[in-house]
């Protein structure tokens, strides 16, 4: 007998992976390839991809990402996805006729999911089944629970009612030749309260073809509940698999340990390496072409396909072409603003509940015998690090070990703050300092390859605490806030998002894993030890979780700064930064707010001042007009730390400028009389 299948559902909107809530809110999680590769690493039983795009065109080109995403249509994207999917792949969305089914199958889908069109034109089911076999026709049914207790089928992403009952419709689609039914609850979507058992059972009991239940999973126990209370052949979920490390394996183990056998879990498959295997030859070619363009001062490559020009959020000052994945709602407001108002709306009582949740997690993982620390806090020595340590040790009473990646770019003030932590908190502190010769190479390579000299810093910060955690058997690593969630609103506060390899590789490392640098400037595997992430088996064995403190306690950077200054002698510099009006951030790295951030301006046409002003608009302490003035004052400034950096890596300013120019996004910048120009905000 076939095992019950556990199926991740991935929603695609305009080429990107999104999180859905109530069928209306869609927050961008990231670009698809990293997620799909990861799900394949995890050996998922099957994968359902649903395309909810509004147009057939998308544009995800970014010069500084390793995966280049040159495609602009869903079908092209599907072909790319199919090449890294060695599990059954069902693909749905905007299927209007038999030829659409054929296109999707030819691009690599094994099954096609049909929803709205099946209701409008049921013949598509029988025609599709006749042409390609029932086994590849999945009919998806979205049902809403009505006030009178009945259910009704809705189409067009839950917007249009049909008058059909899910049971009658399911019976009909079976007769028409559908091979499987995917039943989804609109009410439960994205809430994390569990499946609608009644709905799923009513459908599963009325047909004899396999049924996949979907909608509402927030915790692993919900899977077990569905297996216990329904007769479905498969259970599916979306959001949960985006937000927790090894969530698929952990969900399965929960089911297996509760007495529901499933296909065994996969960890560190020798067939599917977690670390990308790069096409060395092609990558070297791209690198050389860039240096070649730079030496001839040619700037960026031209964009040969159509594109949408940059636009700005109407509430904050964020542009659509952004370092973080962005999406805008119908009023032109970005998801970061939308999510931040959600955060402001969380009442004090809710924060009390969240605090209790955090204590439960920490208590469960506290060292019982004194053989290790209770948890690790990843610290840079900045205001947030101080706040985290203050909260975990002095408010909650746990004994943390502090872990720091030392990228050799500390400001004097930042360094004093860092070294003072062991004193003011009386905690153990491991500072991992890679050799400076290696760091110089990585600075240069990061700049030349992805326009980011601080790549080593991002990957180092993301790796060291997790690696030490597995080595020392400490199951909890505490991080501060989830940057992208805060900036671009990638998730809801109810997701309790945790640290994952996928986020590390995709967002912090831009798709460049440690092994990318092998053999460049004679770098060896041994040289890169600091940047090698623990294996999935090690993470699984340790039960390692990286949690974000911002999910459990109210996170307001300005308040933290004041608290740690008063209580722990945290120093802020007396000087101001070149590129932003705030002076309390990024003291751990003089280039982070300087030349690293200047590269963001070069690439995308905005910088740290835009980030800070956006945060302050959202915190309600700055108007959009004031913000625009500041952005115009700071974003373009070429910072003074460039001098140190050029000397550090032995590069001339001319060479720097010419390489930097190759990263300019042609959708943002244009050349006029030898000068680069961009559109000001809102023009």
């Amino acid at each position, binding site marked *: 007998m076939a095992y019950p299948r556990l199926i991740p559902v991935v929603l695609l909107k305009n080429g990107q992976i999104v999180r859905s809530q109530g069928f209306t809110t869609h927050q961008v999680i990231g670009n698809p390839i990293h997620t799909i590769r990861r799900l394949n690493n995890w050996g998922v039983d099957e994968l359902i991809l649903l395309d909810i795009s509004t147009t057939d065109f998308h544009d995800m080109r970014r010069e500084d990402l390793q995966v280049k995403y040159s495609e602009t249509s869903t079908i092209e994207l599907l072909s790319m996805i199919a090449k890294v999917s060695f599990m059954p792949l069902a693909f749905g969305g905007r299927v209007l006729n038999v030829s659409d089914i054929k296109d999707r199958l030819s691009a690599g889908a094994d099954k096609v999911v049909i929803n709205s069109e099946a209701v409008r034109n049921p013949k598509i089911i029988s025609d599709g089944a006749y042409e390609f076999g029932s086994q590849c026709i999945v009919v998806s049914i979205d049902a809403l629970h009505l006030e009178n207790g009945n259910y009704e089928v809705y189409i067009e992403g839950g917007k249009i009612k049909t008058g059909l009952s899910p049971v009658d419709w399911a019976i009909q689609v079976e007769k028409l030749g559908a091979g499987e039914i995917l039943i989804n609850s609109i009410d439960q979507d994205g809430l994390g309260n569990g499946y609608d058992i009644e709905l799923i059972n009513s459908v599963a009991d009325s047909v004899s073809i396999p049924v996949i239940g979907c909608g509402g999973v927030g915790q692993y126990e919900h899977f077990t509940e569905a297996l216990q209370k329904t007769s479905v052949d498969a259970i599916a979920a979306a959001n949960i698999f985006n937000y927790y490390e090894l969530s698929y394996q952990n969900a399965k183990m929960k089911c297996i340990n509760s007495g529901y056998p499933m296909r*065994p879990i996969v960890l560190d498959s020798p*067939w599917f390496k977690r670390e990308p295997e790069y096409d060395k030859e092609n990558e070297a070619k791209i690198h050389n072409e860039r240096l070649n363009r730079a030496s001839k001062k040619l700037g960026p490559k031209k964009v040969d396909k159509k594109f949408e020009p940059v636009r700005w959020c109407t509430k904050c000052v964020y542009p659509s072409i952004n370092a973080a994945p962005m999406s805008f709602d119908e009023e032109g407001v970005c998801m970061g603003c939308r999510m931040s108002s959600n955060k402001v709306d969380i009442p004090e009582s809710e924060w009390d509940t969240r605090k209790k949740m955090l204590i439960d997690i920490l208590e469960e993982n506290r060292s019982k015998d004194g053989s290790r620390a209770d948890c690790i806090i990843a610290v840079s020595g900045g205001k947030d690090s101080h706040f985290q340590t203050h909260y975990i040790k002095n408010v909650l009473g746990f004994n943390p070990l502090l872990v720091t990646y030392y990228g050799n770019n500390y400001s004097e003030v930042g360094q004093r703050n860092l070294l003072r932590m062991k004193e003011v908190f009386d905690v153990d502190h491991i500072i991992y300092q890679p050799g400076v010769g290696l760091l110089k190479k990585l600075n240069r390579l990061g700049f030349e390859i992805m326009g980011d000299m601080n790549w080593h810093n991002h990957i180092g910060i993301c790796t060291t605490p997790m690696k030490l955690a597995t080595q020392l058997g400490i199951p909890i690593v505490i991080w501060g806030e989830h940057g992208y969630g805060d900036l671009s609103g990638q998730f809801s506060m109810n997701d309790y998002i945790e640290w994952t390899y996928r986020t590390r590789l995709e967002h912090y490392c831009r798709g460049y894993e440690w092994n990318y640098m092998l053999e460049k400037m004679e770098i060896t595997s041994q040289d890169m030890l600091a940047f090698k992430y623990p294996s999935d088996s090690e993470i699984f064995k340790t039960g390692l979780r990286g949690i974000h403190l911002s999910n459990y306690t109210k996170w307001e950077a300005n308040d933290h700064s004041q608290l740690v200054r008063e209580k722990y002698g945290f120093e802020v510099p007396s000087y101001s930064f070149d590129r932003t009006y705030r002076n309390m951030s990024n003291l751990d790295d003089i280039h982070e707010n300087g030349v690293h951030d200047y590269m963001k301006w070069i690439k995308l046409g905005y910088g740290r001042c835009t980030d800070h002003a956006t945060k302050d608009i959202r915190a309600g302490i700055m108007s959009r007009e004031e913000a625009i003035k500041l952005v115009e004052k700071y974003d373009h400034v070429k910072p003074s730390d460039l001098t140190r950096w050029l000397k550090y890596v032995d590069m001339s300013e001319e060479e720097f400028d010419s390489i930097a120019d190759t990263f300019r996004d042609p959708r943002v910048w244009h050349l006029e009389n030898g000068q680069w120009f961009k559109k000001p905000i809102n023009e």
Partner: protein
Amino acid sequence: MSIAVVNTGISNIASVINALKYIGAKINVTDDREELLRADKIILPGVGSFSAGYNALKDKNLVDVIKSHAQIKQKPILGICLGMQLLASQSEEGGDNIGLDLIAGNVERLKVDMEGFRVPNIGWCEVDILKSNMLISKDKINSNFYHIHSYYFNCTDTENIIGTIKFSGNDIPVIIQKDNIMGVQFHPEKSHESGLELLNQFINIKGY
């Protein structure tokens, strides 16, 4: 070593091609008689109805080439899903149809007489390996493969059965072999690491 993947044009074989390329196999996707004649190994994939599959081979005039590859030259051939069923003598799907008759047996519809079983049989099933062969070892720990089928290969000679799954109280053959002729009911190309391992075994078969 040349490995030909038969492309009858009736089903989507993108996944099979992706998987074979991923494991580094040099393959030739073809419906050309001459190319099949030259092949050292043949893979016969397929999804869809039996008669459509067999007729496609007939229309493209490939039946005798495949038979001679398997029976006269005795070179390795692997049928996948419908491709395995086509190796049979006949099938009851859509009336009585004759097959390639490379392994004696009849393709019959899956019978459900127990609660909890549905047709098509979709999903991951653990395969009981009755004896080791060139594709898989009896001692294999993870022998889970992705199945999606409504019919199965009822082998006349139980000697040819390598692996079975339990379905509604019956043992259903899902890996069969008669000398150089092999078939799998499931989709190795969609069966993650266990599937790639099996395909890799096939492409590495030596001595033919």
